[in-house]
């Protein structure tokens, strides 16, 4: 049984087709990175999973049940776009409202526990409207975590979080799925952060799935490259560019060689042409570059 199983899902707003025959399979225990450019249909899909907007076609199953089944929906935690808190109420009161909504016993105890998890216990008495962007995001995640959800659907949960906040979230996500039954669907544009935790990915464009893969499949697909620095960078780039087809310079000032050559061959060739390599290493492209390549139609 899969946590989420979407088949041929579609959604149109008037003439605009936001989601067009989308498939998605989220296994139990997965942290499922849902990636796509702005307006690609990620949030619309997530809203349909949560029953917030009706589907135009297709089916969504959560743990083998239809996504409209109240029993399964009661076990879904959600953070979509904004945390959904009342500005004039305190963080604690907002959390209590959701806890009561979920019918949690010992609600106060549970709320305090979750606030501690996201390091927000000190701000429990603050009015929500007075919280900073990062704090609001933490409250949103805390709201989603209430009631020990079986499935978490998070839209851009890492936005506005500081480094510590992101680390905490990574720990929380890993902790949630460790029993192998709970799952998280998370969309984010912070692909570097997502890559640190995700076990599965789906990349969508114009409401259609482009690629669905596991983290190990992504690893296999990510091409290796040689990064080097030389005593004369301009000359090195010129020489390599004359012989090899895929040479570029990255933001850190390294020359990258994507052609299938070894570091030894590359260094020797440059040395033969009067350039000394001062630093050389091999690495793999990350999710971000893979995604950009895929969007450009590359491999």
């Amino acid at each position, binding site marked *: 049984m899969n946590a989420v199983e979407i088949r041929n899902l579609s959604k149109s707003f008037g003439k605009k087709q936001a989601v067009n025959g989308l498939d998605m399979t989220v296994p139990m225990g997965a942290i499922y990175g849902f990636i796509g450019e702005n307006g690609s249909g990620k949030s619309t899909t997530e809203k349909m999973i949560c*029953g917030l907007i009706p589907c135009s076609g297709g089916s969504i199953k959560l743990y083998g049940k239809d996504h409209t089944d109240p029993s399964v929906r009661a076990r879904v935690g959600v953070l979509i776009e904004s945390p959904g808190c009342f*500005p004039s109420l305190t963080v604690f009161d907002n959390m209590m409202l959701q806890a009561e909504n979920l019918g949690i016993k010992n609600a106060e105890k549970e709320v305090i526990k979750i606030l501690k998890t996201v390091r927000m216990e000190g701000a429990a008495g603050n009015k929500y409207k007075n919280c900073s962007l990062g704090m609001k995001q933490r409250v949103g995640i805390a709201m989603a975590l209430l009631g020990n959800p079986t499935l978490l659907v998070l839209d851009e949960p890492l936005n506005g979080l500081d480094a510590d906040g992101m680390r905490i979230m990574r720990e929380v996500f890993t902790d949630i799925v460790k029993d192998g039954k709970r799952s998280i669907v998370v969309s984010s544009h912070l692909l570097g952060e997502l890559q640190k935790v995700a076990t599965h990915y789906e990349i969508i464009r114009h409401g259609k799935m482009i690629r669905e893969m596991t983290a190990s499949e992504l690893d296999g697909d990510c091409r290796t490259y040689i990064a080097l620095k030389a005593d004369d960078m301009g000359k090195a780039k010129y020489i390599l560019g004359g012989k090899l087809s895929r040479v570029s310079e990255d933001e850190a000032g390294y020359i990258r060689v994507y052609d299938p050559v070894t570091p030894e061959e590359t260094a020797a060739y440059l040395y033969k042409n009067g350039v000394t390599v001062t630093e050389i290493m091999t690495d793999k492209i990350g999710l971000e570059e893979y995604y950009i390549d895929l969007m450009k139609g590359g491999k």
Partner: protein
Amino acid sequence: MNDALKFPKHSFGQRVKTMMKVDVRRMLKSKVFYILLAVALIIPIVMTVMMTMMAGKESTDPQTGEVTVMEGPESVWESIGTLPTDEAAEKPTDGEAQMGDMDVMAMCNINMAFMGVCVFVCLFISDDFRSGYAKNLFTVRAKKGDYVVSKTVCGFICGSLMLIFYFIGALLGGAISGLSFGLGTLNIGNIIMCMLSKIFLMLVFVSIFTLISVSAKQKAWLSICGSLGGGMLLFTMVGMITPLNSTVINVILTLVGGLLFAVGLGVISKTVLKKSSLV
């Protein structure tokens, strides 16, 4: 962690109970709720005292020289409701004026609570959508009917409290102004029936306001304007349906009408929520 794959089912009663708990908690933390109750209490006191103070004063029209004597309330119960007079029916030529008088009386009394409650219902519901709370709510609560029931009941509680507060305010205002508490041809039973009829009739108004609010979602201005417009259509009938000399028939009529409206409009509200985007 062992309960990860448990999906317990809850009965309608359990679901509505927990949702009501949340909504009542929210209502009790809402400033609008207390402001409306305060207004419902203060308005009859201020109006009764002012009108009593101005009673008997003469004003002269500078153009025609016509002298008008200001009339004040004669009884405390005038703030609660109007009494249809036989004379209005007997005198067709004066009938228009009589009806006009009755309309003004009917509008500037306790019946204002019927329109006042629309502010509460519209803001209460639009806040859910404006803050994004509706997303959290409808994700974990798939049954839209629970939401409609809970909001209607909360609106009904607020409306009923406004009526009761207005009633108390009218009594206090009357006592301060030294107005008569005499019932005349009426009896205390009529007053109780009148109040009960008004309370049950509140269900009709709240159901209309709930339907308009769930349709307008986060647009509070639209729901308030729509509710005022929609409510106004029925507003003029409140005085006739719930006069001061109400009997059990009025109570039964308003109770049945209230329930029918609540169920009928509740089903439509539920369908609107089901078929439309909730974010």
